[in-house]
């Protein structure tokens, strides 16, 4: 469960996120959509505690991201836009390192490692250096890194980017199975991915949340493309207002 309330993030003059509120319920996969530069990555970075918010609150599993940061970080698995890998480590060595960072007990480590290597299809490359892996494998190691400590909350920033069609299908299937007991926030530009995988959709445009609804409600008689285009061309931002003033 993630609750975002009145979240605002300013970089100096520029407001990346403005008064955003939405909820990602437990056991559901939330598709987080928006054009490039809309504030998706910023929002996700705030939820994971990497960036501080200018104002507003974020609660993850009931813990406040700002005041109980370490409790939150213990419960989150995070795959940033580019997978955070040390190129001089082997896949297994890296995952072991991450597991220790996440505070896993030594005894659980071997089991967890085998589990994520298996689920992410990395068993064959476990002893290869990360720097020598292809983009698809790197992405999967990134996903494995987010999953290793079996967190109740997963934040995935464009997890299928750079994968070939077969891998995309595999990763989607994997993400779908992750939903059941976890809260998953999935950001992506691939709309069919959302309609296949997600239960709920949040669309952000120009830092504002413009759509928050169950996928089933949004899709009544419309494609997700229609919903998306309509949502991001609605008169919400200062840009649109300025354009209106000019005419």
């Amino acid at each position, binding site marked *: 469960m993630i609750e975002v309330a009145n979240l605002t993030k300013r970089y100096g003059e520029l407001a990346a996120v403005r008064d955003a509120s939405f909820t990602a319920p437990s056991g559901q996969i939330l598709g987080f959509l928006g054009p490039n530069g809309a504030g998706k990555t910023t929002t996700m970075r705030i939820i994971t505690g990497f*960036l501080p918010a200018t104002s507003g609150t974020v609660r993850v599993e009931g813990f406040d991201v700002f005041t109980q940061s370490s409790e939150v970080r213990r419960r*989150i698995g995070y795959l940033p836009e580019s997978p*955070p890998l*040390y190129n001089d480590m082997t896949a297994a060595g890296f995952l072991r390192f*991450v597991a220790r960072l996440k505070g896993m007990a030594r005894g659980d480590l071997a089991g967890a490692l085998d589990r994520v290597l298996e689920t992410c299809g990395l068993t064959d490359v476990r002893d290869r250096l990360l720097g020598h892996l292809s983009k698809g494998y790197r992405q999967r190691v990134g996903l494995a890194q987010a999953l290793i400590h079996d967190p109740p909350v997963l934040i995935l920033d464009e997890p299928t980017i750079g994968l070939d069609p077969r891998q995309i299908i595999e990763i989607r299937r994997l993400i779908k199975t992750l939903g059941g007991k976890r809260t998953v926030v999935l950001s992506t530009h691939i709309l069919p991915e959302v309609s296949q995988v997600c239960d709920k959709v949040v669309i952000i445009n120009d830092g504002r949340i413009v759509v928050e609804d169950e996928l089933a409600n949004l899709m009544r008689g419309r494609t997700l493309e229609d919903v998306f285009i309509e949502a991001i061309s609605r008169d919400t931002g200062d840009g649109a207002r300025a354009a209106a003033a000019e005419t």
Partner: protein
Amino acid sequence: MRNVLTIAGRELRSYFSSPVAYVLLAAYLALAGYFFFALLSAFNQTLQMYSMMRNPEMVARFNLNQMVVVPLLHNMSVLLIFIVPAISMRMFPEEKRSGTYELLLTSPVRVGEIVLGKFLGGLGLVLLMVALSGYFGRLLVRYGNPEVPMMVAGYLGLALMATVFLAIGTLISSFTDNVVIAYVGALFALLVLYTIGWLGETMQGAAGGIVRYASITEHFSEMTKGIIDTKDVVYFATLLLIALFLTLRSVESVRWR
């Protein structure tokens, strides 16, 4: 503490899983070995000259420590000014570039543990370097008769100085995501710290005293003479703590922006 060791272990291993550690160790030891050889040759030559002049008084005043060990330690300290920033320069820039900075900062690890872990990882390599150069001292003990306690104090001073160098390098690498800036910035800071004493020599009164106290060379020289004084150890410890504390603040400051 477990987190500190996890991060330190990864940091130290990363130096050895690339050629970095080997190149730095080789460069340092080869140059230090050359200095050692040159100093020793000069010593031998002078000794022979005085022996031929049959001046036992002069020969007796001859001293391996003063003519070989002390200058060698000073030369090695200058080498470290150039080598240690090469160890610290990648600490933070590389994490920021590869995105692993995000991984570290979103893990349930305190910022202090990250800073200490990275510092200790680098320190492992720095101390290995100093320890290996202890071989020159070992050679002198084997074939000559230097004053061992004095030499040990000198090496201890070198190790302390290298530790402080690394802490300053760590601090400067935390400011940037560019390795060149991290290297040159650290080099600049260390050279200032090393040479600020020159200013103190000509300055009078309290200001001169302060500048002389701030000079790292002053404190290091005392130790190469075999004097382990609390005031010198306190000086090194103070610099170390200040640098690490500022690094902590600098990394934390990501959260203030």
